[in-house]
């Protein structure tokens, strides 16, 4: 039970880190594209 509860507590920061990775990767890609095209990212 303790192991399951530990996993239950720790799985959320893991998912958060995954989402953060996806967002940062997409942002960097958009930033590079905008820079190459000579325009603002927004």
């Amino acid at each position, binding site marked *: 039970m303790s192991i399951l509860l530990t996993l239950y507590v720790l799985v959320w920061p893991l998912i958060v880190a995954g989402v953060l990775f996806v967002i940062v990767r997409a942002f960097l890609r958009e930033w590079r594209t905008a820079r190459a095209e000579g325009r603002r990212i*927004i």
Partner: protein
Amino acid sequence: MSGLQQLPGSVAILLLLLFFGGSFYMSVRISKKKENADGYMTGGGKIGFGISAASMTATWIWASSMYASATSGYTYGISGPIHYGLWGALMILLIYPFGRRIRAVAPRAHTIAEVMFARHGRSSQLMLAGSNVLGSLISLTSNLIAGGALVDMLTPYTFTQGIVAIAAGVLLYTLWSGFRASVLTDFAQVLAMLGAVAVIIPIVFFTAGGPGLFETGAANLTPQQQDFFSSDAFYNQGAPYIAAVLAYAIGNQTIAQRLFAVREDLIKKTFVTATFGYGAAIIGIGMLGVIALYAGVEPLNGDVNNLIPQMAATYLNPALLCLFFVMIIGSLSSTADADLTALSSIVMADVYGQNVAGKKRANPRTMILVGRITMVVAIAAGLYFAGSKLNILDLLVFVGAMWGALVFPVIASFYWGRVTNLAFSVAVVAGLAAFLPVRFSWVDLSGGLGLVSDVVSTLGVGIVLGLMAFGFFGKRVALVIGAVATLAAAPFTIGFLHTYPVLSGSLVAYAVSTVVCVALTLRNKGTFDFALIKERTGDFDNEPGGARPADEPRQGDPVAARGENS
């Protein structure tokens, strides 16, 4: 305060300067000497996935949601954070089909209220605009209060100094570039928030005792708190929240604004990512409440809102406490700047653009000035309310129910051509009128009226679930799910539901507004041409910076009157 670890004053000031100074620097980097009015409201409608997903996540996560999730974990035990965070997250997912429909019929709109004006007319527009002004002001106030309380608890400075510093900081970076500054800084804020969540939760968990905590602290939990399927948690937290957040998601201008800003083909991807980001972050923060419960922590001064800062001050070292401080400031700033830009857009487009100057005479330069003045007035109002003794949660529940009464009429207006302005307006007023006596127990619900309330609320259960199904599966499946849910719930809810006034009030608002809207709509034999909305909601500004292709109409261009029914 009460022996808790605090940040030195100089460190707190340095962190605030770094945070707001960095946000201001980002804002300056994208600023233009002459801002475009449409860009000021929606960023031109072509924002990419990275920024829009970050912005949607950051806006949906606000300081109060972090505090509330931890409170839910502490109050209802291991299932508590799920009953706060999961439902909130699913709502982001559930509204994206509606978002795509709204964007398809009004690709160049700025506010939901503006679309309602194009669809129905002035009264529908003003109902949505009014509810959003109230909701955003309350949200702004709530975020300032959360920031003030944080500064008061974790630094040597006072609550008042805290709210003034945060209000000034948010206004500083949002004022010039509006929505564009809001979404770009959301990216940096989401980095800080999600990064902090990923680091802080495991550290607090292991510092508080790690896996052994679940054995040594089990005695601190009641059987309901230990139960992952706790009915107590569902009826008191989960169910009312499901009804409330559906309303928040549909009626909220901060969400609608991002919907109109993101590139149309990226809506689904953005909403799905925000679902995971919001859900995991908020449930994760809720785990601090669960850990506090197992560790036997008593909230400072008996106030559960102190729980998160208290856990941070107890279990984190000074460096991580700084990270925690930035995380909370990031969460409240991202929502506060979204509230400011939502308010400015409503006043720019719905008040000035369509009701004061008129569509044809609206001057883009004046619009931007109106938007900036709105932000200053709004932040002043937020400061005033934050310093008073208003019960923010009560006000939020009130606005939530008001939006509950709007949900069906708004959704139906985008799909059902027969819905009229009269049906929309009367349905909303009727829903609200039915909500008030139930929510605030103005009438005795122990007798026959309680039974009536239960029957109507049970119908509300079917309507909420039917609406959720409708977005994904269409009318036929929605009707089946709504009917089955109503019949299945009836034996359990009738004679019982009125004992939960928060939940009943919300469900009654859904049910009454739906029934009235349908009844009045069926009387109308005409149908509306949805293509008119696209023609009536074009850009206001032709200056560079907007994204309007040459063949798309501008606000005020002549519109052929066809299919008008209301």
